């Protein structure tokens, strides 16, 4: 199974997260044209290679974060070091 490096919790099974998809800015709904909004809704990058994507750590820290992954090898670029410092508070 894919192991996703959560920046908060550390390496987690992909089943513990939700895949949101390609990371991209959401156009302002008040000023975006219908064409821009449809492009935001439907068009998506689907490269065989590096993809910047959003994940949601559903079972862990419940945070959204962005990672870069190679969709052919499933390797993450520069996996972050988790911030969680596990253990008893001294």
């Amino acid at each position, binding site marked *: 199974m894919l192991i996703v490096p959560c920046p908060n919790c550390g390496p987690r*099974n992909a089943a*513990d997260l939700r895949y949101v998809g390609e990371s991209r800015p959401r156009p302002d709904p008040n000023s975006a044209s219908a064409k821009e909004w449809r492009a935001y809704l439907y068009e998506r990058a689907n490269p065989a290679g590096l993809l910047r994507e959003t994940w949601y750590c559903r079972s*862990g*820290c419940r*945070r959204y974060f962005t990672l870069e992954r190679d969709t052919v090898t499933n390797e993450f670029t520069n996996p972050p070091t988790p911030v969680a410092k*596990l253990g008893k*508070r001294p």
Partner: protein
Amino acid sequence: MLTSTRTECGSVAELPAFESPVSRSFVSDAGASMEPRRPGAALTLHDVSVTTKIIVRAGPETVAGHQMDTPFGASRTEDGALVVGQRPDEWIILGPAAASRALIDGLDRSGHVSVIDHTHSRALFRLTGDEAASVLEKLCSLDWNDHMTPDGAAVSASVAKVTCDIVRNDLDGTRSYLISCDRSYGQYLFDAILDARHEFGVGAPADAAG
């Protein structure tokens, strides 16, 4: 700005004699303490759902956030209650049964803070014994070795496919875990843990077998 969670928190505070509506365990009526280890048993699983559970969400600049004084992934004991840094801006306070009033009153709720009593909505189990990590390894993909999850470690993960909050909270040097999940999954998770520890050769305490 009044957010929905703050409204909820407000309603708890406004009820003068509010106590958790379900202050009994659902697996059994007995066995309701934070000291559940049965003498002589190598591995025990206790339903400690009656434990008071307060979830505090607080921004980094709030008084409540400083009061918690526990980083994400860690836990500490204060006045008989366990303060757990369960998520980056979320803490769970585990206290003695029927203590939610006192625990909530002790918190400064000024600023962007949400305090909710989850005593009634979360099930809580304590799994104690030297083999406890082996049992968890059968149900959960995380590493339960001492160097990864030492005493005091707080993590959230899927246990038997149920999202759980887990705190390692050793009792007198014996490995012990507090595992909580949504109440509706409680019976299932209890059974799943019992099933997983079967191979380690110890039965459930009579009062908790339900």
